[in-house]
């Protein structure tokens, strides 16, 4: 069988939570064999189509990445290189006219919802702080699901929401989190790096997002909603090998049903979360998996309450 050459094109460094999940999955696929993987990070959206073309010209088979900021142009590139397959993060639907482009997004609202249930049970004050980078759909969606989950166990929960206008300013995220703790929050939703640090310093709790950081904050991070890119990538690789790759929406591979997201193990907080809440989590998880319950997908900007 022929090796599939994958190229990753990321608009941020690979340490960025979101991209790190794609990167890890691709590295894993490479380690598993049959796949070759190179990547370019920190590509400005202006340069994104150029880099895509360059990889296409260099003969890669599959390009993974994110084209939220360069949709129109990126789709043009896809159309111009029909032999190359594209698996790209995008807010838009797949397009039959561009059969070599499949889209995905981090639809991990299921896990976020479950982490919210735990959060609602763990907050004493009922005030929860949420620090985000920008109010984009990928962020809003998870925040909204988290808030819905929290209201399950804490119907009167109050939320403080802030956006710091940057993806890469942990000191600022930390200051914002400090301010929320001053404002009464005892539990923080850590969408950005820096938030858990503030929680740790002030003895508050935190809920992780996309990645599991409990190892760094054993007394702080209670639970995390994890994104697993492996199902998405593996589905794409299989389709390529089978010759059946087509314009498709791979978003569902991030759903819990598909194993695209999960609640991180409680770890150090094992036994510290109220029984009732854990029972609810288990119930809901089962319901999500058997399809009897779906977490709403809400991309609107969350507001403080």
């Amino acid at each position: 069988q022929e090796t599939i050459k994958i190229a990753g094109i990321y608009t941020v460094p690979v340490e960025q939570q979101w991209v790190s999940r794609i990167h890890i999955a691709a590295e894993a696929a490479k380690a598993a064999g049959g796949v070759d993987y190179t990547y370019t990070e920190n590509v400005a959206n202006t340069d994104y189509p150029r880099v895509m073309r360059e990889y296409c010209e260099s003969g890669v088979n599959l390009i993974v990445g994110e084209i939220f900021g360069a949709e129109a142009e990126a789709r043009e590139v896809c159309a111009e290189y029909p032999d190359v397959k594209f698996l790209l993060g995008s807010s838009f639907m797949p397009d039959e006219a561009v059969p070599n482009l499949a889209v995905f997004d981090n639809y991990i609202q299921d896990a976020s919802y479950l982490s919210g249930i735990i959060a609602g049970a763990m907050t004493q004050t009922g005030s929860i702080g949420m620090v985000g980078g920008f109010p984009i759909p990928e962020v809003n969606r998870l925040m909204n699901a988290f808030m819905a989950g929290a209201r399950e166990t804490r119907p009167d929960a109050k939320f403080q929401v802030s956006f710091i206008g940057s993806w890469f300013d942990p000191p600022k995220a930390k200051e914002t989190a400090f301010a929320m703790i001053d404002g009464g929050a005892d539990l923080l939703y850590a969408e950005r790096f820096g938030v858990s640090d503030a929680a740790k310093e002030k003895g508050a709790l935190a809920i992780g997002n996309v990645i599991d950081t409990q190892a760094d904050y054993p007394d702080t991070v209670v639970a995390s909603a994890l994104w697993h890119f492996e199902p998405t990538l593996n589905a794409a690789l299989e389709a390529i090998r089978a010759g059946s790759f087509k314009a498709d929406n791979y978003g569902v591979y991030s759903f819990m049903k598909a194993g695209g997201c999960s609640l991180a193990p409680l770890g150090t907080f094992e036994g510290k979360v109220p029984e009732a809440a854990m029972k609810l989590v288990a119930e809901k998880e089962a319901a999500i998996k058997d399809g009897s319950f779906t977490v709403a997908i809400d991309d609107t900007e969350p507001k403080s309450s």
Partner: protein
Amino acid sequence: MSDLFDILLSVSFWAAAIRIASPLIFATMGELICERAGVLNLGIEGIMVIGAFAGWMAVYLGAPLWLGVTAAMAAGMLFGLLHATLTVPFGLSQHVVGLGVTMLATSTSYFAYRLALPEVTSPPKITPFAPMDLPVLSDIPFFGPVLFQQTALTWAALICAGLVGFVLFRTPLGLAVRAAGENPAAVEAQGLSVTGLRMGAVIVGSGLMAVGGSFLTLSAFSSFFFEMVNGRGWICIALVVFGAWRPGKAVLGALLFAAFDALQIRLQQTPLGAHLPYQAFLMAPYLLSILALILMSRRAEVPAALMVPYRKGER
């Protein structure tokens, strides 16, 4: 309204303001020294990045925290040396060299980081400076927690500002540096080396900028992030002008700016925050800086030879 008063009277607000101001104070002092000697150092943003990186990397590799600060300073001075060599004896455009140094220092940091840590998918952490809980002093109501629960690096920032003020205005060296920024010919005619003074100022100033950068990775946070300096260097350039090239006023400016930042973070949670777009809050510190510049424009005294290269033997 009452929200605003609650915020302004809270301990944590003022503690936050001082914390946010600390890196700005270091870097502003650095820029101020350069400009006092007649050199506009637009390399500041990049030098802060290299400082954040070098300081963090040193500690990550096992150095004690203060050695990390020293490493940051050394890295900053190295790029300061580059800036100074090109702008002072060679007299190249301070704009180009500054932006070039920013680009070079930033990309060098990222390049080196990636070479050193090629496989990370989550930024590694170090143990940063901890707030110093000084017995007795920390217990003073209000001022105790505001002032005495900062990290040692915040204290270093305040001391540094005092020292810069002292050296600039109370010693022969400071006099010579200031004169180099006012009229290099006068310095030359008094038997001093303009080149030496300006280069020295740029190198030392750049060292301070880098320490400001290292505050972000060694005190404010514990990892190095790409783009984490996030325009703070440019703010410091404005703060120098805002402070009318005086260390005391510049520190005040930094505190004011930081206070606005701390305030906007908190105001986002008030009913006001629900009505205004968050960008309005983020904009406020910049707009207020411009406003302040307008208000004090009449009194500001730009160093007369700022941005004017000095070539010996040319009139």
